[in-house]
């Protein structure tokens, strides 16, 4: 089971799109949980941004029993020290990941709001970050959600469905097989 948890309020349509995309991409049940309190220490005044690593650390101890992965969704603009920003971050081969809606919003770039575009982008990035937790690395197929997004044009060119190569790696991975076995075992 994959669990999605917003840090504070998040648009319902965005969370629904994220749930649906994750369920389709990973063929696992997805549950939305109650909002989490965002980690105040994540804010870095010198940068005016929020530490993505601090969000991951806040998620690590909160993976619900029986959940394979926990994805946090935040409105905050995230960064890692060496980069100017990130759309999200994941523990590569780990259990937690986080996605930021900040730069996915057209408003951030001076454009009019577009809720449908925001939902689509959030869904794609959610699949990207959760894909990393299953060990997938960046893909060269520009339409694959695992490809690196340089800008919104790249993001908008991606689908939320892993390409055949990434799909095969995912299904063939021991981690996914273990996850499916646990999920099947947990079914009544």
């Amino acid at each position, binding site marked *: 089971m994959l669990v999605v948890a917003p840090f504070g309020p998040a648009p319902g349509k965005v969370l629904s799109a994220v749930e649906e995309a994750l369920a389709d991409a990973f063929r696992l049940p997805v549950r939305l949980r109650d909002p989490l309190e965002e980690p105040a220490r994540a804010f870095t005044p010198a*940068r005016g941004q929020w530490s993505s*690593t601090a969000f991951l650390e806040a998620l690590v101890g909160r993976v619900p029993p029986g959940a394979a992965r926990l994805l946090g969704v935040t409105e905050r603009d995230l*960064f*890692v*020290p*060496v*980069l*100017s*920003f*990130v759309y999200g*971050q*994941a523990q*590569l081969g780990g259990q937690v990941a986080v996605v930021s809606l900040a730069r996915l919003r057209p408003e951030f770039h001076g454009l009019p709001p577009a809720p449908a575009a925001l939902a689509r982008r959030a869904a794609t990035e959610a699949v990207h970050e959760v894909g*990393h937790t299953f060990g997938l*690395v*960046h893909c060269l197929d520009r339409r694959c959600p695992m490809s*690196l997004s*340089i*800008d919104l044009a790249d993001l908008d060119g991606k689908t939320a469905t892993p390409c055949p190569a990434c799909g095969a790696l995912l299904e063939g991975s021991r981690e996914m097989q273990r996850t499916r076995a646990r999920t099947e075992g947990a079914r009544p």
Partner: protein
Amino acid sequence: MRARWHILVVDDEEAMTESLAAWLREDGYTVDTASSGREAIEKARAREYAIYFLDLKMPGLDGIETMMEIRKLHKDASVIIITAYATVDTAIAAMKEGAQEYVVKPCHPQEISLLVERIIRVKNLERENAILRRKLTRQYRFHDIVSKNARMVEIFELVKDVASQRSTVLVQGESGTGKELVARAIHFSGDRGD
């Protein structure tokens, strides 16, 4: 496959090292880290890395000093200097000492990924070129033309003499006598082959 390329990230700030290493691992590369110039040199002694990311300002050996030591071990090392203190002088100094690139942190995510991709693409081409050259040279060296015939042995000696000269050579003979083989042997036995 990117996993076969090893990258070393060196920075005395663990948060910087780990964030860059994590980014590169997401790109599919195998990444080692070091927290000082000395540690980086020890790791470079143990293996040759495709790319070295070196922070400019570190206690002890700085990025440029570390780069120079690594170059003694691996003369073709691809080094990227990273720094938060961007000045034209430091950029020039780094490039003069042989850094391949100079990156100011924090940088756009695209910058790191495209830079590494470009360097790896060139390394792939260099590797392929070296393999093809070795195959070609092996195929056409005159040592591989087998003969005990006295006249052929004379020709082999002539090929050896001519191969070391820079003059234009005309090879004459009837059809089927091996003119092309001799021409290639002259080419690959001397400087022309390079």
